């Protein structure tokens, strides 16, 4: 009997490793080694034309600290996230609450709201760039205004954040709808009997009960928003007067690493991005104790 148990254990060990081998091999080659290599490269200056890389220690990081373009890009990214994340969460949550009722056409609304998720951001950005066009765009001509949505340095990043919101509310809403399925119906009935109106029910029942979902969406949306690239890359050309006020950290990473071939400096920027994202995530994990209720 004892022998049998050990042979089962041995076979689980062998097959377990065989089953995970392709995935682990791939992850080590494609992700773990690159992660270490990116950090290593951030200590090097990329040599010109095959001259080899030069170890510069913390010089790249010192340069980042004094680089106003990097600080501006970080600030642009944060401005984008500060608008996109809360607005997309609030709108999506309200829509999810409205759609969580027995409504005719519920499926149709859900399908329409989710639609931007299946369209390439490249195509979305092209359409919005055209909608935002100062002279011939639909928005300015429909409302008879003259706003330079994407060339005014003061508002361009917020115009781009609007596209981000438009793109992602359907997705957030679907996650919230899934969370709302878990809220027991009798809670609302009891609240109605006590005379609570819809708004009070939202604040005192719905939000506390789905706070784990809200927290999850918040954390993942902030991570995604901090990596904004596609929309900005597509909307802003280099002769746009707003480009310094719109380029994000990932945009800078792309520009340094692949347009200017300064891979060492590009690697430094992406390590900074990783640090910022980790910091924001840790802060949220600490802050969640104050407002997230787990059953």
């Amino acid at each position, binding site marked *: 009997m004892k022998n049998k148990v050990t042979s089962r254990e041995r*076979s*689980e*060990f062998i*097959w377990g*490793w065989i*089953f*995970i081998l*392709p*995935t*682990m091999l*791939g*992850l080590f080659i*494609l*992700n*773990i080694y*690159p*992660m270490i290599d*990116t950090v290593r490269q951030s200590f090097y200056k990329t040599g010109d034309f095959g001259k080899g890389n030069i170890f510069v220690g913390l010089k790249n990081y010192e340069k980042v600290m004094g680089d106003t373009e990097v600080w501006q890009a970080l600030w642009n990214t944060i401005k984008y996230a500060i608008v996109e994340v809360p607005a997309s969460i609030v709108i999506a949550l309200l*829509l999810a609450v409205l759609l969580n*009722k027995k409504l005719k056409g519920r499926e149709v*609304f859900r*399908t*329409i*709201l*989710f*639609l931007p*998720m*299946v*369209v*390439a*951001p*490249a*195509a979305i950005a*092209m*359409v919005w760039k*055209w*909608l935002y066009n100062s*002279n*011939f765009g*639909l928005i300015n*001509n*429909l409302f008879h205004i003259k706003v330079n949505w994407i060339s005014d340095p003061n508002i361009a990043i917020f115009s781009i954040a609007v596209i981000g919101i*438009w793109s992602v509310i359907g997705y957030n809403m*679907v996650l919230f709808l899934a969370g709302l399925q878990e809220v027991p119906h009798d809670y609302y009935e009891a609240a109605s009997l006590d005379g609570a109106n*819809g708004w009070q029910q939202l604040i005192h029942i719905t939000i506390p009960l789905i706070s784990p979902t809200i927290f999850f969406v918040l954390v*993942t949306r902030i*991570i995604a928003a901090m990596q904004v*690239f*596609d929309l900005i890359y*597509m909307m802003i*050309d280099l002769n746009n007067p707003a480009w310094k006020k719109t380029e994000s950290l*990932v945009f800078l*990473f792309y520009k340094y*690493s692949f347009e200017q071939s300064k891979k060492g400096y*590009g*690697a430094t920027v*992406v390590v900074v*991005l*990783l640090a910022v*994202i980790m910091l924001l995530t840790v802060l949220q994990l600490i802050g969640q104790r104050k407002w997230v209720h787990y059953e």
Partner: protein
Amino acid sequence: MKKTVSYVFIYIVLVLISITMLVPFVWMVLTAFKTTAETMQIDPFVLVPHVWQTQNFSNVIKAVDFARLYANTLGMIFLRIVFAIVTATLSGYAFARLNFKGKNLMFAVVLIQMMVPVQIFIIPQYVMVSKLHMTNSIMGLVFPGVVSAFGTFLMRQAFLQLPHDLEEAARLDGCNIPQTFFHIMAPLTRSSMVALGIFTAVFAYKDLMWPMIVCPDNRATTLASALAKMNAQYQQKYPELMMAALISCVPMIVIYIIFQKQFIEGIATSGGKL
């Protein structure tokens, strides 16, 4: 009475938001069939084209080889789906149902990959692709997607939810581990495999930076990356640009509308990875 009022209010809100969601798509279609002159006219502002310019379509496909772009994009999507489903189903099963030394450490590696911003992998991945002479090829496009940490996580969840008695029964009937996996367990996770496939397809189709980097050549690249190039070249020629955007998103939208339930569930399980 009060209930009717609140329902009317809900419908008004939902209809207004739905219109906001649809306007960009409608405007894309309308512009795609206008003349350039019509798009540059503001007094009066032209909403609907006078004559629907189907010529824009032939102009755009003459200038850009969309058949080729579709072949590249679909080829990349197909290979990524196959690789992701095969590797993730195997590893997901092992992580969920087998006990072996080193399992927790290896699963930590999977989680780390999921938590780190993808840009941190891109420079070394690009260097590998160029050393392997795979730039401007389908394999170059597929490269970072041959395994899937997220897929492993998703399939592990799927296997964790299956009842234990099934495996016990199979074992008592003399099935060994691979037999149990292939004949009993894997077929039961089909819906998660579909979700992973849809997620992989949408993710690959939307990605912009990787195809721009590894496949700068117009004949080797994907729809998204070709659109970015056109966007830079066709300044102000909005009918052509909108036609190109339309050509590259209509098939995906049609597939989405047919399989919307699977799409929404498949993408919703991705948990913020899009």
